[in-house]
């Protein structure tokens, strides 16, 4: 009996420490994944105002464009709008999970892919817009 209680003396703190370790590790993983997502967001978010401006500039060139260019410009404006909407919608829907367990690792992984897709769409549509304006 004495041996058992002696064991518990060791087991209980060990269990507590293990729990604490995994709790801290879980918090770190959550922060790491969240920050990785925010980094992708922060890199492209400042482009939004430039995208609104370049859309306006493109629209102003429609009158002096031939029919082929008009199609290209209209498509580019739509791509810019879709990419911008993608960012606004993503921000409105993304919620940082409270902890890193259950469904949250998969959720964060999906969100990382989603914001990366938004970032790619913003960059490519803006590049295309610049190219059209400089032609």
């Amino acid at each position: 009996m004495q041996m058992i209680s002696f064991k518990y003396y060791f087991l209980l703190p060990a269990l507590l420490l293990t729990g604490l370790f995994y709790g801290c590790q879980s918090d770190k993983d959550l922060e790491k994944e969240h920050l990785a997502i925010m980094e992708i967001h922060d890199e492209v978010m400042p482009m939004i105002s430039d995208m609104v401006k370049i859309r306006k500039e493109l629209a102003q060139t429609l009158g002096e464009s031939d029919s082929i260019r008009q199609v290209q410009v209209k498509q580019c404006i739509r791509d810019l709008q879709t990419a911008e909407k993608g960012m606004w919608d993503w921000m409105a829907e993304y919620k940082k999970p409270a902890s890193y367990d259950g469904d949250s690792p998969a959720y964060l992984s999906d969100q990382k892919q989603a914001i990366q897709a938004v970032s790619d769409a913003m960059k490519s549509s803006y590049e295309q817009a610049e190219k059209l304006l400089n032609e």
Partner: protein
Amino acid sequence: MKTIYFLLMLLTVTAAQYGCSNSGCKPLPILGERDFQNGDTVYHTIPTFSFLNQDSLEVTNATFAQKIYVADFFFISCPTICPKVKKEMLRVYARFENEPHLSLLSHSIDVRHDTIPRLKAFSEKLGVDGTKWHFVTGEEEAIFGIADKYFSIAKADASAPGGFDHSGRLILVDTKGMVRSFCDGTDPASVDEFMKDIDCLLSQEFPNLEN
């Protein structure tokens, strides 16, 4: 000797009077580009605007007649910068809550999601007086267009990063619509200095308030 004593006294009184009347403030510069027309200097001013606030009331330049105001650009779902800026704007609000000559104007740049009811809920959550702090929305082009006018003063700074409307800057506008100061709204120390500028502008624009 008497003359020197008299001069010293005169200088002391003048210095004391100057110090009291200007609260130790240097006049704030008028920021932004300027033109020279017919021998006169024309300063950069905020152009006319019309937006709707959280109470569905029209907010125009006239809303800020006889007032100075602090402007910023934000959106409710902003995950990084805006929460820090709103915390600092709340500090500015709390500091000048009872100052009737100062208002706050927050423009939402997310015109798709930040509807008037959402702006209303947001202002209520912050617990602020809607007649003092306006959260406005409008046409996307108009919002981004006016942002360009506010932030043209920051663009003079070549080291400033792009995307000014998402930079977290706070802008101080005087009673004539001229930009007089700005700061990094994510940095409490910068906002502390900015609030000193607000004090200075208030004392310069409304000198009788101190009496």
